[in-house]
């Protein structure tokens, strides 16, 4: 069953409720949605093509040996390192992770990839250092990496 239309229906119902309550705010919301769409859709285009590239050029065996169940805790680390360097929008993280899973990655490494892709960004480091200082930045990124590793182990054991 396709659930897309259900989500769309829910979104439109919320939109109508919002418009009934405050038309001005709703216009602002739509403007914000448009901006998000303009930022994210081109990135998604790139990610979708990259998903195709991974499917076409990286064999299932390669992904399975790096990120599959046989890779153990090392797989989680690899997933985390890839996620830390991945410059992708949170909205694109899940579709991309889906391709990795379809090509043999197991859930521990996928969790590592998803969490670090959202939380650790090599591209946001300069901003983080500027705003919060380098001690804060170092502490946050290192502790996040370690804790995500532990959560990855939980995922590996449960899923």
């Amino acid at each position, binding site marked *: 069953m396709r659930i897309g239309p259900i*989500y769309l229906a829910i*979104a439109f119902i919320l939109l109508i409720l919002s418009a009934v309550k405050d038309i001005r705010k709703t216009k602002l919301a739509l*403007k914000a949605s448009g901006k998000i769409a303009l930022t*994210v859709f*081109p990135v998604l*285009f790139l990610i979708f093509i990259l998903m195709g590239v991974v499917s076409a*050029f990286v064999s299932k065996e390669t992904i399975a040996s790096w990120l599959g169940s046989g890779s153990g805790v090392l797989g989680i680390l690899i997933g985390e390192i890839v996620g830390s360097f991945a410059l992708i929008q949170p909205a694109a993280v*899940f579709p991309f992770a889906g391709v990795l899973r379809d090509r043999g990655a197991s859930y521990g490494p996928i969790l590592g990839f998803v969490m670090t892709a959202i*939380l650790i960004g090599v591209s946001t480091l300069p901003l983080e250092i500027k705003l919060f200082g380098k001690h804060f930045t170092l502490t946050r990124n290192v502790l996040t990496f370690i804790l995500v590793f532990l959560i990855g182990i939980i995922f590996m054991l449960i899923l």
Partner: protein
Amino acid sequence: MKKMVRDALIYVLVTGAIWGIISIVSPAKGLLVGEVAYGAFTKAVEIIIAVFIIIGLIQVWVGPQTLSKLLGKEAGWKGLALASTVPIFIGGSLFTIFPLLKTLRDKGASIACVMAFITAWAGKAPLLPLEIEFLGWKFAVLRISLIIPFAVVMGLLSQFVLEKWQDRHPAVIKASPK
């Protein structure tokens, strides 16, 4: 706005170039790439549009500013409890939440709160439909339920580490540059 359009065009051109080169070198692989990309697109497009609309609504009705007012006032355990749960429901990227948290920190929010906030924000409830579609509901449910303890531990642990660090080098916490 101009910059957004320009960035969007760059992404589209670079992506088109990658696909074009692959298709010229090997038409069969190019076709496969297109098929996978199109499949992912049709699988995601309705959900993504719904998610964008909902994130837009969240931004105006429970904007980050509302949250920062809420969190700025509450201190101690209550602050940490709020910081570990509420951000799960907001959108945005690190680029948008860092400046918000800087303001919060300057208003007196603790390091534990700021750390917990960033971590909990990775819960990404607005993207839940996408996560379920591509990774399954078991993955999504387990991840979201582990986010809260993760955020609490992250907050307390990083505050502890930074305070210990400051005991040895007094400049650690206060030396945040302007």
